[in-house]
């Protein structure tokens, strides 16, 4: 029973934001989804202050052991989310973590307040892979920007604040330390790696936006390295993700210092990946216990 920032979870596997739409999945799979819900907490797709329709297709491109996406954060905006999606997500049998993103402190504050005051919400994840409209800098690339954002948001809610780091930096540990300093309750990483692919048929990028984010097993070694680096400098818990398909992959993150793991792209290949990985982790931990001692997995 992992305890994560005071939230009790049935197992250490949650979903990566934007890789599982519980509302759509319930339409497809019916009540079996709830009976057998794959994650111990549900992370919403990132919401923004105003509605967004998302990027022009082509939005996805398969790559060796992974994929590129450039979805563009389609969402109903804060009001639409609270009115239409939240009541449905409240039906899920697990705690809800809402992922939010904005391009300035005021807008971020509106999201954190609007979401934070709802009882249905257990925690808030700040997606900081976004430019600050005032400084023009990507918040999550700058330790100072990240710390300032956290300091601004921290007083606005008593709910746990997770900070989701971007991996496209030289030193993610510096950004994580700044987030902790600013009052973050947990760090989640990695988001996708900036990536592109050229369609051989046209000589043009396969993704309409020109580039997107790489995810899947291909990025796992990068993610494990970043989780190790972050675990070395922060004391708050870490949600590790990036290319987890199997329990052995998840164990890499746990050994590297993650308290929870999130399954992302693998959901596309196996809608029950969350459950499966949780079972595989339990099996691996049992096997480890009966053999050599391993690192602390609390």
């Amino acid at each position, binding site marked *: 029973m992992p305890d994560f920032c005071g939230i009790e979870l049935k197992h250490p596997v949650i979903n990566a934001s934007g890789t599982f739409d519980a509302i*759509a999945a319930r339409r497809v799979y019916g009540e079996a989804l709830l009976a057998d819900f794959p994650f111990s907490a549900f992370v919403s797709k990132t919401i923004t202050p105003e509605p967004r329709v998302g990027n022009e*297709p*082509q939005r996805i491109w398969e790559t060796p052991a992974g994929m590129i996406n450039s979805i563009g954060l389609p969402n109903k905006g804060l009001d639409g989310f609270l009115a239409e999606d939240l009541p449905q997500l409240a039906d899920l049998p697990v705690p809800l973590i809402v992922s939010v993103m904005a391009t300035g402190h005021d807008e971020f504050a509106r999201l954190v307040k609007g979401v934070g005051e709802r009882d249905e919400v257990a925690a808030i994840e700040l997606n900081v892979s976004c430019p600050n409209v005032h400084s023009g800098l990507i918040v999550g690339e700058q330790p100072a920007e990240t710390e300032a954002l956290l300091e601004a948001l921290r007083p606005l809610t008593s709910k746990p604040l997770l900070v989701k780091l971007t991996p496209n930096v030289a030193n993610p540990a510096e950004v994580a330390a700044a987030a902790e300093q600013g009052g973050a309750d947990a760090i989640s990483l990695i988001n996708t790696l900036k990536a592109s692919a050229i369609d051989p048929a046209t000589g043009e990028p396969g993704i309409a936006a020109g580039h997107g984010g790489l995810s899947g097993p291909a990025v796992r070694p990068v993610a494990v390295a970043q989780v190790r680096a972050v675990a070395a400098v922060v004391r708050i818990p870490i949600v590790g993700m990036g290319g987890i398909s199997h329990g052995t992959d998840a164990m890499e993150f746990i050994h590297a210092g993650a308290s929870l793991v999130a399954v992302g792209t693998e959901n596309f290949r*196996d*809608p*029950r990946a969350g459950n499966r990985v949780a079972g595989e982790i339990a099996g691996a931990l049992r096997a480890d216990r009966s053999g050599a001692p391993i690192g602390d997995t609390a």
Partner: protein
Amino acid sequence: MTAPFGRRLCQVSESRATGGYRLFSLIDTDGPEPLPGQFYMLASERHWEQGGQRPFLPRALSVAETGPAADGVRLDFLIEGIGPGTDRLCELQPGESVCVNGPLGNSFSTPRELHQISGPPGRKFDAVQPSGAILVGGGIGIAPLALLRRSFAAKNIPTRVLLGFRDAAHSGGLDELFSCCEIRLASDDGHAGHHGYVTDLLAAMLEGDDAASAAVYSCGPPQMLEAVGAMCAEAGVACELAMESPMACGYGACFGCSMPKPGGGYLRLCVDGPVVRPDQVELAHA
């Protein structure tokens, strides 16, 4: 009716060549019988995810036929090998296992249902009793129409079938899937039936007296669907198209399969489709 939650393994019971394509069957012991137009996300159990390159994601395939099997439901798929994923599925041997997620997506309406949805006041087809269905398939797009034809036959809905092929090497599934029914053929190279596009056959048919009260169902290459959609709009004939877009998940999780809507915004073809009416999507951008 919902799909079983999760992916499951189904055994390949048959796999054979048919006019440039392959037709293979799976035995699904756990899923419901699929509806015409629905699809499955498929990946071979072995030699899919091991190794250094693609395929990585499962691939979407429409179910072409189905029927009871000793231990569940038989699912037939018609497939063209055009890349690493479809090539691997073309190689499937009886006894192999396939990871299956589905049935997914919506399904075709009956002409009556379609007239009810499509008929806004003032459009000429909404009052009349539908005269029947016209199925227009092109290439590999004939797959979902096979099951649709049989389901209409079972419902005693009069159905005419128009199928188009590039050439003899791209006429797969014809004998296997449309053996016992009257069809009109067109081929780009004139090897069979009308020498030209299948849309020529449709154009002729839409000039008939009873056309306005018919309902057109089509699946095939994007340009063909665009033409069919335009012709039906022009003629004021109710129409449904089974479309394709890049799909990573098939169940609404990835937002990769988006199709532009006429008013702006996008729909997710995997959950809002794959069957859509021409007025639901920007066909020119598809």
